[in-house]
């Protein structure tokens, strides 16, 4: 009798875990059926790729050709982030409840939310269809993505500002523009810079992917090399990308530390 009681208690104790397993297992089987999971293909393919890896010694001669596309990618990310940051400050003003009227704030927040919901790659597809391939579409899509993300972050930072400091500036008779320049921008600048650096790291990674869809740059080189089954060239591109990501991340970290040490451009 006791034995049954205890075994039942055991089940009850793990009731929740059992329920989770019972829900997830059929879902996982369904999902793997939809995805067409075939592990045998994977093992075979990976075995083949292992042979491929031997072919993937980087082609050192191709390095010189990769530098220009890599620089293009970095510049796309840089210009996209800079433009995006500057524009997102304006969007943030319009999206902060303590500066903009309610209707403006809500509508701008809606637009920013929409921009965030669209992956950069979808924006790029749209822009490539309008402007043609090239860095212009790439820069613009990164700018739009940057506005969506930083606009919201900066607007939140503005809304968290101490209302007393803003009121005291208003009280001495400052105009609206003076209030924005001396009250708001002064205070949010440190966070704007750190957001921008964070976004720059993200933009570098994105510019690689966007490059393959039509923005040009190092991503396109890698995609093309894969397409032509030139794996050595692809590996070269990978090495260049890794170096690029590593260097920009170090740089951004260095700037962040320096700005922190100097008291954020006071």
């Amino acid at each position: 009798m006791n034995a049954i009681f205890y075994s039942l208690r055991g089940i009850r104790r793990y009731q929740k875990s059992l329920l989770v397993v019972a829900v997830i297992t059929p879902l996982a089987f369904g999902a793997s059926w939809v995805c067409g999971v075939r592990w045998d293909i994977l093992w075979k393919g990976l075995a083949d790729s292992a042979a491929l890896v031997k072919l993937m010694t980087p082609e050192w001669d191709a390095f010189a050709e990769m530098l220009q596309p890599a620089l293009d990618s970095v510049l796309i990310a840089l210009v996209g982030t800079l433009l995006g940051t500057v524009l997102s400050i304006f969007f943030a003003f319009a999206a902060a409840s303590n500066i903009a009227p309610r209707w403006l704030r809500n509508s701008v927040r809606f637009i920013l939310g929409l921009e965030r919901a669209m992956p950069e790659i979808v924006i790029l597809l749209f822009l490539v269809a309008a402007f043609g391939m090239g860095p212009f579409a790439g820069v613009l899509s990164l700018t739009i993505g940057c506005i969506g993300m930083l606009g919201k972050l900066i607007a939140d930072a503005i809304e968290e500002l101490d209302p007393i400091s803003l009121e005291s500036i208003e009280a001495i008779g400052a105009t609206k523009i003076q209030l924005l320049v001396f009250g708001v921008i002064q205070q949010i600048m440190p966070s704007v810079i750190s957001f921008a650096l964070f976004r720059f790291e993200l933009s570098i990674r994105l510019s690689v992917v966007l490059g393959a869809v039509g923005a040009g740059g190092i991503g396109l080189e890698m995609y093309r090399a894969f397409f032509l089954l030139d794996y050595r060239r692809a590996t070269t591109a990978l090495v260049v990308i890794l170096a690029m990501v590593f260097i920009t991340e170090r740089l951004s970290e260095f700037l962040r530390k320096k700005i922190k040490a100097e008291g954020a451009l006071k």
Partner: protein
Amino acid sequence: MKVTSHYTFSPVSYRQRATIFSVIAVVLVAACVFMGFDPSMLFTEFHYVIDLFKEMTPPRFHDLWQDKTIGLAILETLSMAFMGTLIGGSVALVLAFLAAANTMPLAAVRLMVRAVLSFQRVIPSLFIVLIFVAAVGLGPFAGMLTLVFSTIGTFGQLFTEIIENTQQEPADAIYATGATRWQVIRYVILPQTLPSFTANLFYAYDINIRAAIGLGIFGGGGIGFQLFQAMRLLHYRDALALICVTVLLIVLTEKMSDALRGQLLGGGALK
């Protein structure tokens, strides 16, 4: 007491600011010239955007109901993200226990696992998806494997930090009663970390849905691929319908993931 005023520009900081801004401006202009990026093109060429917009509206939702492949593509994207989160999350969890200092006593194993995790984080996903497409062919399976890979990299690191941030005192207390390492993991570390693991998995699903759409373009299948096809074949009205569906999908996932996470971390389930 010396009163410093933040709200006036002192000559030094004014000069510093001017230098920084002019350097940024010069870099910006130089970069634009070098790339051939002309901001005024946005205004001179803007009629192309308007033309495109005219061609795109109104979105044609007709095909969404008619064509079964679209419905399947949405399902594929959802499944890709789900499997990527499930498998990637589980592997990340195991690796995190092997990489955390308070669960893995051997420093050599820790270092190795950490090296693997950071290696997975730095490799661009474009490269991974192209490799998997070469290995298993076009389709959602390749996309799923890519998501597994990137989820392990990102969340393995995060889970390691979560495990290392658990309180040491309860673990010491249980060790003092003569418990083994396994028992400590089961009765101290797991209960403390399970809510945040689950919450982060919902977050991972949100990220993976977005990533899955992008991966579709490079042969990962799903709705991203359908969108790319529609754009390439100039079926703009279908494309806009697909964009609407994509945005809806992303927004719904985000809201759901946020709500579930809030509920989990705010106390409640899975205690």
